[in-house]
């Protein structure tokens, strides 16, 4: 167990925010500075969140229910508009980027959701092809039936990558939980992303399926050099699959530490 003194843990009132998160020559994929978000008058979810994710790094964001993890991820891509703060993605300030520019930048980030968010009633293959809509919209990207051959082949390769090529024609709502999440990852891969953001990707899966999905993320970060930012309730999983752990508590980052220097017990303190 790590000595308490070694933890970069600070109180919610004074969050541990590196001044220049990506300083020191390290390439930075995502930088969030002073992010604030409230829902209504009395629900301040994020109160000045700052963190950075370096290129090819796997970062786990932990925190108890309601800590603001999902909101932080959504704000980082402006799926939810933040009240204040600045966002830099792939060295570009997206804080006030126009809709069209934002779409182009989002196309380079694969977002994997807790509930998978596949389109029901359409095939796994069509769902994967939808991953290309950020790069080329229009009717040919709406369904596998209209898609050009090169797009279908690429989508099949993505399904192959997640081990589900044989399920290509199966309807999304007829897949198991684990298969459904892997199709969601294939959809993200279809974007040819520089970075994958995953919001509690295994929370709705059984332990075996969850392990498979996390192993898949691990392969993607290690073998293909994709940057990964994921949230998790499972502290052991957060440690095992990340290079660095961030802890969010009461709307602020209270821990930013390399996973190798942490134990599950250290992280457990940030719950409750």
């Amino acid at each position, binding site marked *: 167990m790590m000595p308490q003194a070694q933890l970069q843990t600070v109180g919610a009132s004074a969050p541990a925010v590196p001044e220049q998160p990506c300083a020191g020559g390290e390439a930075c994929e995502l930088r969030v500075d002073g992010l604030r978000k409230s829902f209504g008058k009395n629900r301040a979810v994020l109160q000045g969140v700052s963190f950075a994710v370096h290129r090819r790094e796997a970062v786990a964001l932990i925190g108890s229910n309601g800590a603001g993890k999902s909101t932080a991820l959504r704000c980082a*891509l402006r*799926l939810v508009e933040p009240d204040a703060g600045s966002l830099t993605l792939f060295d570009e300030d997206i804080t006030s980027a126009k*809709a069209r520019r934002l*779409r*182009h*930048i*989002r*196309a*380079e*980030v*694969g*977002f994997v*959701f807790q*509930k*998978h*968010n*596949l*389109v*029901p*009633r*359409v*095939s796994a293959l*069509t769902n994967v092809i*939808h*991953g290309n*809509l*950020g*790069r080329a*919209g*229009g*009717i040919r*990207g*709406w*369904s*596998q*039936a209209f898609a050009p051959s090169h797009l279908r082949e690429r989508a099949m390769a993505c399904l192959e990558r997640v081990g589900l090529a044989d399920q290509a*024609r*199966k*309807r*999304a709502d007829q897949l198991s939980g684990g298969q459904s999440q892997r199709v*969601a990852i294939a*959809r*993200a891969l279809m*974007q040819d992303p520089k970075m994958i953001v995953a919001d509690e990707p295994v929370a709705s899966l059984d332990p075996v399926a969850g392990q498979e999905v996390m192993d898949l993320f691990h392969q993607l970060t290690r073998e293909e050099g994709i940057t990964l930012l994921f949230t998790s309730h499972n502290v052991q999983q957060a440690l095992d699959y990340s290079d660095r752990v961030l802890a969010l508590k009461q709307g602020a980052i209270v821990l930013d530490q390399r996973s190798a220097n942490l134990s599950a017990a250290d992280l457990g303190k940030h719950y409750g």
Partner: protein
Amino acid sequence: MPGRLERPGALQFTAYVALAAFVLWSFQGAGWSFSALVSGGPAMADFLSRAWPPSLERLPQLSKALVETFQMALAGTIIGIIVSLPLAVLAARGLTRQTPISRVFYTSSRLLIALFRTVPDLVWALVFVISVGLGPFAGTLAIAVDTIGFCGRFFAESMEDVEKGPSEALTAAGAGKFDTIFCAVVPAAMPSFITTSLFALEKATRSSVVLGLVGAGGIGIELKVAMDFFDYQLAMTIILMIFVLVLLVERLGTIARGRILEGSSR
């Protein structure tokens, strides 16, 4: 032990009394009469005895008119469904971007759908008989407008009710609004679209019979002429033919709903 019924407050009691008075007043205004109902019994029996057996004399002509009635219903419904889809997209809350222009489109499309829905199809038929003349085309247009009012509302509501997750996923992947609507919202709302469309066809089939009464094509005009000339046997034939047609469309609709909703993926 709590009482079985709660004693209503003074305001609640007054409301109950007012409601009862309102219902009684409506029955009075509607000319409700038990004596007329009882005395009308023999007249009804007389009609039925004079209408039976149905006359099969003009069966070929009536069959042609019945087919025309269904053709009007089908064509009008298809046109109505096609037009109502884009209107419903504009009229669905939260589907398009929140800009002043989109708000204008939202309000206008809602008003248009409400206008098409609230004005009865018979009135639309009268309007189209004046504008395009007597015949099935006027009826088809009336059915199309009525279908837009019906489907436009329910399509919009079903799109508002779909789960937001898939749309969010495509937005996160950089997809535009148009792509998101047609890739995430429309497929999710498809079961509701199919159900609504088949109900619209059933409704249109019933309507197309009545539209003939004002000269908008179909078998309705045959029924009116038969009744006007007291040819009750012919009228009975027409009524039975309408009954079979509507029943057939409803049955086929039920079967199609089941088959399509279980259907294969895209």
